[in-house]
């Protein structure tokens, strides 16, 4: 589904990623882990085309998308929930969902579906997204990605700022989507959550993949050490 090879990227002249390779098979859930500042967000941004790749290749569904603008990648079936409560603040909650739906010409049912996953958004539909609480915004952000009915869902710390009971629901939702065949690329700091969800994981450090393997590997002490400061 997604294949990344020798990816390099960064900001201006500061390089952050040094030849990252990874792949996500259809229906697979891959979790990227690593300490703060190692380049997880940079990796996802580059995969989505928010940042240009300075070297390497990103392919999606067999197509080379390395030079494609973000919106074309969305059209191909990639969806992205960026880190940190990203919304269109002056659009209503419904407007936030609609605008995404219209941009990818999805069916109205996709919107209903997304709202089923996040029922707490329903009473808020008319409110401006900018006035929502942090956690409400984050729920909206995930719902917004879901309305595109993506083939690959990319999530950057989706549970950040969300109350425990909803984290459970999100986890279940991801599990469900994953089970229904959606590929997922997830960045997550909660180790336990990652362990429960991931088929495979990678650990980044200083812009390199320093470890990758299955969930079983991650339980090992050595791996845990890699994640510690």
């Amino acid at each position, binding site marked *: 589904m997604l294949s990344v090879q020798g990816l390099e990227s960064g900001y201006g002249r500061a390089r952050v990623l040094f030849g990252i390779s990874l792949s996500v098979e259809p229906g697979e859930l891959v979790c990227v882990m690593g300490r703060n500042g190692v380049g997880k967000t940079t990796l996802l941004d580059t995969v989505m085309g928010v940042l240009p790749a300075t070297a390497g290749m990103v392919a999606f569904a067999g197509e080379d998308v390395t030079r494609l*603008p973000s*919106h074309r990648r969305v059209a191909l079936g990639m969806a992205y929930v960026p880190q940190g409560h990203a919304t*269109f*603040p*002056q*659009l209503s909650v419904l407007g936030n969902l609609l605008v995404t739906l*219209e*941009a990818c010409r999805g069916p109205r049912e996709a919107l209903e579906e997304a709202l089923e996953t996040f029922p707490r958004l329903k009473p808020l539909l008319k409110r401006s997204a900018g*006035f929502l609480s942090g956690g409400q915004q984050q729920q909206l952000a995930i719902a917004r990605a879901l309305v595109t009915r993506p083939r690959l869902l990319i999530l950057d710390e989706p549970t950040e700022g969300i109350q425990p009971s909803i984290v459970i629901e999100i986890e279940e939702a991801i599990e469900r989507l994953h089970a229904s065949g959606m590929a997922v690329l997830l960045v997550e700091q909660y180790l336990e959550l990652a362990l429960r969800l991931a088929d495979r994981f990678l650990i980044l450090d200083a812009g390199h993949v320093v470890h990758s393997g299955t969930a079983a590997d991650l339980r090992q002490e050595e791996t845990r050490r890699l994640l510690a400061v």
Partner: protein
Amino acid sequence: MEAFVNQLPIGISIGAVLLLIALGLTFTFGQMGVINMAHGEFIMAGAYTAYLLQDLTGRMAVIVALPVAFAVAGLMGLILERTAIRHFYGRPLDTLLLTWGVSLVLQQLARDLFGAPNVQVQAPAWLQGGIGTLPYNRLFIFVLALLTVAGVWAYLNRTGQGRRMQAVMQNRGLAAVSGIDTGRVDQRTFFIGSGLAGVAGVALTLIGPVGPTLGTYYIVDAFLVVVAGGLGSLLGAVVAAAGLGLLNSYAEFWSDASLAKVIVFAVIVAFLQVRPQGLFVLRSRALS
């Protein structure tokens, strides 16, 4: 009392002119944050379009000119956006300088193309005359302003394009990863905003001079309207335009035109004391 009644339509019609000019700005300035100093020259382009068309279409020129001027000025805006403005997103205030340069060039261009003196656009016969102190041409501008406002409102709030436009302006990066072609949206926004300037230009031929410096006469007031109304707020622009129009007309009646301008300024400063972000603020919880 008689003065009060007589000045009312004048104030409203000044407001209508201001609104018509400011409407284009609610797109380029209000939505995109671009302080487009060339907006005045797009107005001028609209006026010259009406001038050129009157030989072809005779006295219906004003009507025919409206859509043509929209397209002409819109196209000019589109070119400006493609060649220059698009490098400036994220630092909108800087566009002021760029567009200021463009405005100088366009003024000089008009001078070379049409000559320095004013040209004449004949008002059609059916716009001659009026009811009481309200001439038909003023009425025409008033109706045109109303229709344009309604159109703009519907576009922004009732169409997907309008929604996408707002999304891009509120969070460009998120819009892109939500599948919106931000480049297209920028072009469209600028096209429409500039096109509306063209429409205003046609209307202005009915009441004012048509010359290379036409745009410069209205630009400061138009920006004031947008600011007093609140950036990006359509309702605010409408109310502010009406308010400024009335204030202008009454202040001028009881003092003189020069003093009226000073009074208007003082009132706006005072007003921003009460409502610092304009009449209708698009608030947000986030820190700037």
